[in-house]
């Protein structure tokens, strides 16, 4: 990526709290006008990374740049960003309009321009009618919009969002995801988004960084990291995955054939013959064929009807398997049925890490 276009750049940033390493050697470039998500379980360092960009924490090593300016030792109030907090942190003693105008007052914008900008921002989040209310008089969703309006009205170089939708219920959260995305695209804002919700990260982001123990495990477009996870952690954090281990027995035109304890499967990869690999397959990529079909023979242990999809839990000689079928008809497959599980080479990916030398070679994570 062209570094000149990066609105936020972290270079080798490290941060430890006491003996705990919160962020360890993180380097990222966040391109102008894109949403970048930091995704990971709690304690993975995603929020600390965000607070390092904001300047609420000082890195022990490395540098932070905003719009090409080194801000590593600049206090937060002199950095060009604004932030939406998980708890919103709306000032309870100020009305909605006063909350939104706060950043403009602090930036000493002229009074007339302030009023115009506040009206615009409140219009954007559809809260013009509530300008004179106090935060405590608003619903959670409305408070969330005020927090958003307060952050975008100052037209920051980068908008930081710390799990901003975490406090909303599922319906409202999905609605706000769509709204946030369209708002960001209309305004061309650069945003860094912290979340532990993989669906949210996939929905909202142009690029996602999956973090674990202070380290970025993988960075890429949502489809990249979902379809081509580098390791088992990324694969399982972004949803369920089937893991199968075996030895490569054939290599042809970018496709490897892997010999597993249950039979031969294919994967799009170009590894040398004889290498032991672990491959991951998404449950929706798994086909269920009748017993005389191709693939791994398995036996259905459990069927879970989930509305739009049906989950099939199976046991095979290569370990447990899980498949999601959208088009499963009632009674087509039932518990105890013998099936063959197959997938296209494009649906499988070889993981970077070498598989552990264990007797039981397969596992399913949810």
């Amino acid at each position, binding site marked *: 990526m062209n570094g000149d276009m990066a609105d936020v750049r972290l270079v080798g940033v490290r941060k430890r709290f006491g003996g705990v390493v919160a962020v360890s050697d993180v380097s990222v470039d966040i391109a102008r006008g894109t949403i970048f998500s930091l995704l990971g379980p709690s304690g993975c360092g995603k929020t600390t990374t965000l607070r390092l960009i*904001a300047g*609420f924490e000082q890195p022990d090593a490395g540098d932070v740049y905003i719009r090409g300016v080194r801000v590593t030792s600049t*206090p*937060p*109030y*002199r950095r060009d*960003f*604004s*932030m939406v*907090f998980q*708890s*919103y*942190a*709306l*000032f*309870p*003693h100020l009305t909605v309009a006063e909350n939104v105008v*706060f*950043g403009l007052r*602090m*930036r000493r914008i002229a009074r007339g321009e302030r009023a115009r900008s506040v009206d615009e921002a409140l219009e954007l989040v559809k809260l013009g009618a509530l300008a004179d209310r*106090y*935060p*405590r008089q608003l619903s*959670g969703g409305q*408070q969330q919009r005020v927090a958003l309006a*307060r*952050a975008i009205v*100052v037209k920051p170089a980068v908008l*930081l969002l710390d799990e901003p939708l975490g*406090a909303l219920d599922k319906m409202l959260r999905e609605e706000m995801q769509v709204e946030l995305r369209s708002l960001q695209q209309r305004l061309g804002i650069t945003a860094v988004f912290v979340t532990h919700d993989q669906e949210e990260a996939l929905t909202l982001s142009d690029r996602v960084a999956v973090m674990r123990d202070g380290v970025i495990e993988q960075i890429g477009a949502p489809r990249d990291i979902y379809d081509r996870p580098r390791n088992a952690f990324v694969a399982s954090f972004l949803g369920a995955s089937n893991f199968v281990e075996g030895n490569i027995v054939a290599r042809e035109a970018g496709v490897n054939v892997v010999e597993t304890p249950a039979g031969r499967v294919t994967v799009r990869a170009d590894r040398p013959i004889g290498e032991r690999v672990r491959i991951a397959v998404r449950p929706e990529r798994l086909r269920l064929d009748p017993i005389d079909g191709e693939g791994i023979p398995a036996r259905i242990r459990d069927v879970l009807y989930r509305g739009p999809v049906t989950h099939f839990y199976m046991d095979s000689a290569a370990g447990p398997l899980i498949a999601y079928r959208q088009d499963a008809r009632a009674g087509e497959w039932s518990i105890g049925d013998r099936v063959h599980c197959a997938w296209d080479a494009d649906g499988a990916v070889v993981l970077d890490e070498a598989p552990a030398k264990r007797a039981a070679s397969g596992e399913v994570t949810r």
Partner: protein
Amino acid sequence: MTAKYGWFLLAPPLATVCVLFVVPVVYLFWVSLHAPSTSELYAASLTLHNYVDLLRDSFYLTIIGRTLGVAAVILGLCLVIGYPVAYFVAVLPPRRRMLALLLLLFPLMVSNVVRAYGWVALLERQGVVNTTLRDLRWIDAPLDLLYTPSAVVVALMTILLPYMVISIANTLAALDRRYEEAAQALGASPLRTFVHVTLPLSTPGIASGTLLVFLLTLSAYVTITLLGGPRSKLLVSMIYDSVTAFQWPRAAALAFVLLALALVFTALIVALLRPGRVQGTAR
């Protein structure tokens, strides 16, 4: 729990408050509306003279003025000295904050009488301050420190300061630090963050501390008597003097003037600081 049972449970304390507080106050007001008597608690005739005399007499007006002045100075000093201390205490880690608050409470464990005599020992003509200054040859004749409004102010202020510090510190400690971070994220310097966010959000603590200090100043007796002496009397001393002179109705009237001052000030603080407006959580 139904409302019926609720009332049942409330009845004993309500009755106690009625018998021990409301009835005596009403009776006291009744007393204040009568002429004095030499043999009875009050004479038979109803009159407003007790109040009219108080408000016409420049002697009493001076004392009311002095009382309010002393209270205002003590309040101002407690706010100016107390707020920074409270801020310092509030940002300590919880265990150390507990310890600091206990240390602040420690002086309150020593009787006011003992502490007042301590000030006497310091401030009297042959006291520690005067002898030290004379030994240093900074003064020739001893200063009149004791029995002045200043002595009352200093002594009462040191007694009441912990109330102010603890009130404000509790509010500040409970304040979500995210508010300050949100202000800084919007470009507010530490000073402007304090002025526009921290200070307004600490008004509940300021209001309760202010009321405690002011009301306790109005009702203080031991300290003002021992350190104010006969020349710097305040309203409470006049009530005592009237009682000892068997001027029950005037004592009662003075008591109601004091009560009125307290009520007016409380209303003023609540209207001015509006502590209720900042209550509510970040969510």
